């Protein structure tokens, strides 16, 4: 007998019934229970987080407290500080947006990708809890930033209402940004998203310029009530947008930030920024893809000249590094306005960070024995050639920041010191974690790790000491 027309339902009913998919909540609960059973509880995680907060966050509050309790050390007028804080806030918002987009903001680490995200569990249900934490984190960080900005601007005297209002505005902004970043998570990064950073930096330049020209405009009006209302509306809209998109965030979008998050965690735990910067750099070059070099080939010449030309050619390919180098010139000027007693030390630290941005070639050569072998010269000569650009950058940087103090040939000590610090940092041998340990308040730490972390910073500390305690 031939099958009758319309037999499809009979065939379909012959298929085994689809297995019941557990809810995301149930799956998460089981996962948590299994982990608890195997002793991988949260204790260790909490300890690590606390340690990182203590290690990296102890200096800031102490300094802030000192700053707030010494009003005499705030000579810049309130208007200047207000505008500086506004510029800083815009730049910080831009950088935060960039970070949110780079990390996800919602992300799934490799194990979660393989075992949970790849399963048919409802995506929306799986992501709703992380989104909640993300929005809460955005609110807390935003509130903290808002309050801190008000304090830095010297508005604490205006009363708790001003600080509280700024915290509310900050919290709303944080929620809005986190929600919006989640909403556009599946879209590719667009270079225009960097605009807030550029606006903030331009604002800082303008404020400093106007301050020195003594034409700083009046304090920006701060209609806190209306601002809070507007930001609340935007925050709700951001959160709603995030909720709406939650079920459509695909595995690719969730996986994109995982390597970066893993590298950031490793870098924080091992206090080794290169673990993070390496991943960031690889992502950047993959995004760049190719460069135009066909028409401008390197020219033959002595080895040092060829290497130097290649080094100079690579400079504009790192516009971010150049921008940071240039932006850090503002730091000593801003510190003179906000915290003059810290301007000298801040200049040294900012100089170290700025010059380090130009030392990518030096770091590449120092890090890679294979590169040194192939380039065919002694290590020392290769290092020296790749030190030319950072040295020139250090000199220019220091001269550009010299408006804060009278020209002094003795300042050359700082330029040489910064170059030496960067050199020491770049030539640090690779880390070994198996050597002797030292007992610290944060537990046992490998001696080699401490030595590596301090390499370069030790020279900076000496320079800061000279700046603070030795007569000019």
């Amino acid at each position, binding site marked *: 007998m031939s099958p009758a027309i319309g037999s499809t339902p009979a065939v379909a009913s012959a298929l085994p019934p689809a297995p019941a998919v557990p809810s995301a909540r149930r799956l998460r609960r089981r996962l948590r229970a299994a982990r608890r059973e195997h002793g991988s509880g949260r204790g260790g995680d909490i300890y690590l987080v606390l340690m990182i907060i203590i290690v990296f966050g102890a200096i800031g509050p102490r300094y802030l407290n000192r700053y707030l309790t010494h009003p005499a050390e705030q000579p810049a007028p309130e208007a200047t500080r207000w505008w500086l804080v506004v510029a800083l806030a815009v730049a910080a918002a831009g950088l935060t947006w960039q970070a949110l987009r780079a990390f996800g903001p919602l992300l799934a680490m490799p194990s979660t990708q393989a075992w949970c995200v790849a399963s048919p569990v409802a995506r929306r249900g799986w992501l709703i809890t992380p989104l909640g934490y993300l929005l809460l984190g955005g609110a807390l960080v935003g509130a903290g930033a808002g309050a801190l900005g008000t304090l830095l601007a010297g508005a604490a005297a205006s009363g708790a209402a001003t600080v509280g209002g700024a915290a509310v505005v900050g919290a709303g902004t944080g929620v809005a940004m986190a929600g919006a970043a989640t909403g556009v998570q599946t879209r590719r990064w667009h270079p225009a998203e960097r605009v807030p950073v550029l606006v903030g930096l331009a604002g800082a330049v303008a404020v400093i310029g106007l301050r020195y020209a003594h034409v700083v405009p009046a304090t920006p009006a701060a209609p806190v009530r209306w601002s809070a209302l507007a930001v609340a509306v935007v925050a709700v809209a951001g959160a709603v947008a995030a909720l709406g998109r939650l079920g459509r965030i695909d595995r690719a979008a969730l996986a994109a930030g995982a390597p970066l998050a893993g590298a950031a965690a490793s870098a924080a735990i091992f206090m080794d920024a290169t673990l993070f910067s390496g991943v960031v750099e690889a992502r950047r070059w993959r995004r760049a893809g190719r460069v135009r070099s066909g028409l401008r080939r390197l020219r033959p010449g002595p080895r040092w000249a060829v290497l130097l030309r290649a080094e100079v*050619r690579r400079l504009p390919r790192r516009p971010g590094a150049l921008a940071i180098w240039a932006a850090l010139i503002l730091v000593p000027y801003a510190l003179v306005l906000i915290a003059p007693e810290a301007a000298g030390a801040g200049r040294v630290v900012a100089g170290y960070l700025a010059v380090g941005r130009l030392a990518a070639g030096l770091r590449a050569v120092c890090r890679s024995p294979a590169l040194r*072998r192939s380039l065919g010269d002694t290590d020392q000569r290769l290092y020296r050639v790749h030190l030319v650009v950072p040295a020139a950058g250090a000199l220019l940087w220091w001269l550009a920041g010299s408006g804060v103090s009278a020209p002094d040939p003795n300042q050359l000590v700082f330029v040489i010191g910064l170059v030496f610090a960067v050199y020491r940092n770049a030539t640090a041998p690779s880390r070994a974690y198996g050597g002797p340990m030292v007992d610290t308040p944060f537990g046992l730490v490998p001696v080699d790790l401490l030595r590596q972390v301090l390499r370069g910073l030790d020279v900076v500390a000496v320079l800061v000491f000279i700046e603070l305690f030795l007569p000019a």
Partner: protein
Amino acid sequence: MLSVANLTRRFGERVVLDQISFTVTAGEVCAVIGANGSGKTTLLRCVVGADRADGGQIRLDGRPMIETDPVVRASVACVLDDIDFFPDLSVGEHLDLLAYAHGGREPDVVEEIIAELGLSDARDQLPATLSSGQRRRLALASCFVRPRRLLVLDEPEQRLDAEGREWLAGALLREREAGTAVLLASHDPDLVATVADSHLELGPED
């Protein structure tokens, strides 16, 4: 040209290379063969100075081979597993840089190698965007755009397609004719049979 005498390398209790001795003369291709884990890569790493032997001597033209010696660096071109690139230089720029850093004056050499290795379309690409096969080709190209007297290659056929392997065999034969000493480790019996004058077999003794 290259002489290795009583080379020993241990990892903890395990002796990977035990009193290995051999020589490679100019114009000779010596193939190091053996199973995985027999110590081929370790031997090559010790020869070029990427790893430190526990005992024995390695000499180039009768002088102790010291990796940091500029004469050694000028003479020895190698492709090992630690090959690295400047992340911000393109394929073409890497090869130009290497050729000129070794005193090369002829840009045509770079162009020829790029064309031979099928890297023309990738000339302006940054290393991070290359496939593993293209990275391998770039690494090999880096050896052929610069002067060399000793070529040390660790499994150079890896990740190469059939066309690439054919090119590699031809290039090694040309090196032999030009008087370059070649020390290569390989798992490809066809490549070894085509280019090698001598063999050094590593592995547990029966």
